[in-house]
């Protein structure tokens, strides 16, 4: 065991880019990094990078990464004393956090009861409202199931129906006409039941064309909480984020201070320990409401790291080790501008349908202000077994314009062949006039379907594509090589 740390091996109970990301910091700090992996990930960069690894099994690859007993047993066999859950999988599962603690290990995350509180959207909302922070007008089924529909009717239109146990946009329905309230409630209930095994609902006022603004917070086990400023994540498809940036181009200095202090206040009231994210809906009129709190490291955490210079995984580990935060609020500064682009294996022109395939060629972008967090390597394979997000491109600039220019260059340079990705779509989005003017809201992509559609190919580009492809196609090239140039020059008339 190292002199400074109460643990010398950290097991990452995750896969893909986030396992690589966490291992990088673990190893930089002089600790050993271990991973569990399903056979589908045997050749993955995380396994190659880890100091030790243990194979786990499951009915499906995802099931293996959700198997609490197996993962705790793997940690024990590796001599790991701390477990970092990454995001997704078991990262917000209070039973996992408890099982880790019961096994005498350190969970690199919040206390189980904090996961429980924030994981139940209705309880979380009530907690936030009780402490005087803003929540949207709403009706909660659990308050009195018999009067739920009647109370829902009194919430100002339009309404948003949400599953109490929900997240990620699953089961959410927008209602603009009370005549369809009842059937939409039934639909949301059955979706909630299907996705979360829980049909309880709540209804809240739906903010038209809202922005999604979230605040990174960090709390230690000694009651200290700071915020690390906001992230704007308004570019979404199917309620899932695609592009995130900080600072938000939409906020005034006063709004920024207000929303960030609100987030820190919520975390403080919860006695929150760990890195966490408080999400808000931000209306065109400057009003904002608490949406939910994610009690884990967020996919888009790198943009915060890029502008604050603070390694959030390192902070998670220090907090888990019982250290006090080493900095105060006034020393956390936003410097420059950072944007993250999620690279998805999907076809935006076909309804963002997930794609699969081999990674035949991969050449990540490089250069100043460019960061590439990836879980794929050349000769790897993108399968349908996991989430289609395969990498993240993060760019930093002195200001938004410089970050955007670097992003465009980096997206152009990124070569990933063999599995279709959304990079062309990301460039069309980046170069859309509304993005440059920061006129984005969460319904932006639905309102501009042209961004998802394949761009037309100019004739000369088509000829260059076909020429390059023909040269690389053996039977075409061999056919050409079999006929000397002189004969070829004579053309078809010689027959």
């Amino acid at each position, binding site marked *: 065991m190292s002199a400074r740390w109460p643990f010398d091996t950290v097991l990452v109970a995750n896969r893909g880019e986030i396992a690589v990301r966490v291992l990088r910091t673990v190893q930089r700090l002089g600790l050993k990094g271990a991973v569990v992996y399903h056979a589908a990930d045997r050749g993955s960069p995380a396994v190659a990078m880890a100091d030790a690894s243990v194979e786990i099994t499951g009915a499906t690859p995802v099931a293996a990464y959700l198997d609490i007993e197996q993962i705790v047993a793997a940690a024990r066999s590796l001599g790991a004393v701390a477990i970092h859950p990454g995001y997704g999988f078991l990262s917000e599962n209070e039973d996992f956090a408890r099982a880790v603690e019961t096994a005498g290990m350190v969970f690199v995350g919040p206390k189980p009861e904090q996961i429980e509180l924030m994981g139940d959207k209705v309880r979380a909302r009530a907690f936030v409202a009780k402490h005087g922070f803003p929540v949207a007008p709403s009706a909660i089924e659990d308050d009195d199931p018999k009067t739920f529909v009647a109370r829902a009717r009194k919430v100002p239109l339009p309404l948003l129906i949400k599953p109490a146990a929900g997240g990620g946009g699953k089961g959410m329905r927008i209602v603009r006409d009370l005549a369809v309230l009842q059937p939409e409630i039934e639909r949301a209930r059955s979706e909630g039941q299907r996705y979360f095994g829980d049909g309880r609902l709540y209804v809240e006022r739906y903010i038209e064309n809202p922005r999604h603004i979230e605040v990174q917070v960090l709390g230690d086990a000694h009651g200290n909480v700071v915020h690390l400023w906001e992230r704007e994540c308004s570019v979404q498809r199917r309620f899932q984020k695609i592009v995130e940036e900080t600072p938000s181009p939409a906020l005034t200095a006063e709004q920024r201070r207000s929303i960030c202090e609100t987030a820190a206040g919520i975390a403080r009231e919860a006695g929150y320990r760990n890195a966490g994210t408080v999400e808000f809906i931000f209306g065109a009129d400057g009003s904002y409401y608490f949406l939910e709190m994610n009690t884990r490291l967020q996919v888009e955490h790198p943009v915060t790291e890029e502008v604050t210079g603070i390694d959030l995984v390192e902070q998670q580990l220090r907090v888990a080790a019982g250290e006090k935060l080493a900095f105060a609020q006034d020393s956390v500064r936003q410097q420059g501008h950072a944007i993250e682009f999620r690279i998805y294996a999907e076809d935006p022109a076909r309804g963002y349908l997930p794609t699969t395939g081999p990674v035949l060629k991969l050449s990540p972008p490089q250069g100043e202000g460019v960061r590439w967090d990836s879980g794929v390597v050349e000769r790897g394979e993108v399968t349908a077994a996991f989430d289609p997000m395969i990498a993240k491109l993060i760019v930093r600039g002195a200001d938004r314009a410089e970050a955007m220019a670097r992003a465009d260059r980096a997206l152009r340079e990124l070569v990933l*062949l063999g599995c279709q990705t959304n990079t062309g779509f990301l460039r069309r989005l980046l170069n859309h006039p509304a993005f440059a003017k920061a006129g984005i809201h969460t319904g932006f992509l639905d309102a501009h379907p042209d961004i998802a559609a394949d761009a037309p190919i100019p004739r000369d580009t088509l000829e260059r594509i076909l020429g390059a492809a023909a040269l690389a196609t053996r039977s075409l090239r061999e056919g050409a090589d079999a006929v000397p140039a002189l004969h070829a020059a004579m053309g078809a008339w010689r027959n």
Partner: protein
Amino acid sequence: MHHALRLRDADYAIELSRSADGYRLHLEDRVVEVRQDSGAVVATRGDEVYVHLDGETYHLRYEHPLERLAHQGHGAADDGLRAPMPGSLVSVAVKAGQAVQ
């Protein structure tokens, strides 16, 4: 006999031939020089061809002339098979449209 590359639900009938110092692409009635320094990055697997050009990625599929012939039921006017030496065709065991293994 036409080769074809499929790109975004469209078939492009093409030929490739040698020129004095490289290759030429025959596309419909046009003939263009294929620049080998076009900046394109290409990868293939089987008949799948992936091209990265000017920051965009394209997925093409090479279509075998015989498969095209079989799937179309009738080929392009000059699709055909050529015997390696002179002879007479005495029997055809397949019909147009039938798949040949």
